[in-house]
């Protein structure tokens, strides 16, 4: 099994007529993602590849049974597009866009919660359930089906981390990018809860960063009774305090948000913590050995 995404998701693409939308239709379809509709106001009736384009998410859902949305619109339009998808009945909405104002993310998160939908984003590579479907631009060769759930705050780090375990023969149920922004559509806590319930997920790999408090969710989960084994990597050992390291949330604002404090907190909670990328496979193996 997997979380959130598999072959049953019927995917529509908002902003499908843009460059990213068109590339996604081709790339994700190749991987097996079930692409059923595109949405582009003003372009209804046209096609992108063989995907029919509709004027609104509501119409696309009605006509094609779409239940999952991938959003490719400019940052200032993400708010409107994601809420449209959520309120038109999509159960999963993914917006990879960076540069989304945090206030907009707050609004989308509130709307998702009110409608029982899952929002993944912003500032995320998306998610992939290897061998089933992907929603994002992740390089497919980094992944293979298996029994580890991967959660990452960063895009390319999730490619790197996944490739490492894949090459070591460790496959994944789902790899989900929760994003580098402070307010997330799906938090580490929520992703952990989903993996916890997934019978095929035996252990979890968490790829985190300095800054913010997301890692406290991971420690809380790992310390809870009956938790699945967790391995983790925290990058940013060499990041100075008080500086934003690319991601809005990657800023050491207090001691607790620093690298040493996070590693200690995770280790104290029973997480198998890799000391650098070179140890990810080792930590993962240790976690699986306990699983």
């Amino acid at each position, binding site marked *: 099994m997997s979380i959130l995404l598999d072959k049953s998701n019927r995917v529509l693409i908002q902003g499908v007529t843009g460059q990213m939308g068109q590339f996604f239709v081709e790339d994700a379809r190749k991987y097996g993602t079930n692409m059923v509709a595109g949405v582009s106001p003003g372009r209804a009736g046209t096609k992108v590849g063989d995907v029919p384009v509709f004027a609104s998410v509501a119409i696309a859902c009605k006509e094609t049974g779409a239940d999952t949305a991938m959003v490719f619109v400019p940052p200032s339009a993400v708010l409107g597009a994601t809420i449209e998808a959520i309120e038109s009945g999509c159960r999963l909405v993914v917006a990879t866009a960076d540069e989304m*104002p945090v206030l907009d993310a707050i609004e989308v998160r509130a709307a998702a919660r009110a409608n029982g939908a899952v929002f993944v984003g912003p500032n995320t590579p998306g998610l992939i359930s290897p061998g089933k479907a992907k929603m994002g631009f992740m390089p497919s060769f980094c992944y293979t089906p298996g029994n580890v759930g991967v959660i990452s705050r960063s895009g390319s*780090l999730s490619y790197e981390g996944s490739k490492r375990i894949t090459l070591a023969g460790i496959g994944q149920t789902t790899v989900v990018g929760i994003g580098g922004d402070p307010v997330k559509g799906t938090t580490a806590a929520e992703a952990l809860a989903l993996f916890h319930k997934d019978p095929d997920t035996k252990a979890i790999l968490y790829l985190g960063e300095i800054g913010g408090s997301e890692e406290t969710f991971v420690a809380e989960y790992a310390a809870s009774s009956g938790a699945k084994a967790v391995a983790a990597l925290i990058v940013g050992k060499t990041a100075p305090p008080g500086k934003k390291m690319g991601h809005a949330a990657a800023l050491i604002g207090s*001691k607790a948000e620093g690298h040493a404090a996070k590693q200690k907190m995770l280790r104290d909670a029973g997480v198998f913590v890799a000391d650098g990328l070179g140890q990810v496979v080792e930590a993962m193996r240790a976690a699986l050995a306990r699983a």
Partner: protein
Amino acid sequence: MMMLECDAKRLLASVGVNVPAGTVWRRGDAAASVKVESFPVAVKAQVRSGGRGKQGGVQKVADRAALEVAAKKMFDTEFGGEKPDVLLIEPWLAIERESYLSVAVDGRAEGYVVLYSPQGGMDIEEGVPPVRYEVGAPWNFRVHRLREILEKVESDYQWREKVIALAQRLVRSAAAQDCTTIEINPLVKLSDGALIAADAKVARDEWAHFRSAEINAEREAEKGRADPYLRACLDMQHMYVKLDGDIGVISGGAGMTMGAMDMIAELGGSPACFLDCSPGPTSTRGYRPAFAMLDADPAVKVILVSVFGGGTQMQRVATSMKEVMAERKSSKPVIYRLDGTNVDQVDGIFKEFGAHNHATLETAVAEAVKLAGGAR
């Protein structure tokens, strides 16, 4: 984007928050042009980094002569690596008590959180942690919820009600003006019972630039403060943090950039920077200023290009590298590790200009560390 205290206070005043009646002294202003009504005053260096108070960045001066001496000295001092271009001169306050209030974006709160501590001041991080009111979406702020929380730590009910009204104002303003943090520390009770924001930190969300002329202007000003090399990088949306080491890192993605930095340190080297080029164009146009900046930086001995791309296609990055190298003057060594989408096309392109693509980050970093002078 952190605002200067004087700008933060202007923002607070614009929403009806009581702040000291300050005067701004800009670098280069004639002393005579700086009007001060009465002494003593506080002279405060306007810098974006914290901890200024402990470095002499806030001084009480008793008269005009002392003001000019203090100002001259402050303009010449670095606070957290930053020389102030502006001083803020404010009447010295008759403080009855100091507390702490902030409103900030918080992941756990799924939006805004209000933090309050009955004791404010410089050592706030050392004391009892502030109480938290998790607001979430700004329209969910509730006076009575905050009151319930404050009742446990703040016994002065008149002060408490003032703090609650202020917090309500701050949450509203943070949302209205795309602020990610509004921190008032100390929040001062004057001897007449009035409330005043004695110091203020406001950070605004740079991604809201399209709906705020002020944020837009601040972004431009930030670029304006940068040297021409960095400015060219910022124009390309690159994200840059200068570090102490000698291995320049050109990378894509915040996590992977830090991962590479950490591995440099692990293998005995020292990163010269965080430089994430993924938000901008990953083309020759985008990478050119990144190389120009690192080539011009005398601290940088080696450049490590580490890109693991998904949407960013490696054959394009490889071609960009070829083009940049063709026009580049510097002879600083460049080590490559490209991986990701279409990486199988990289070797062919690299062959055209004699470059080598490392298969793993480990070998790439090891070579960079060796070239930079070996493990220390």
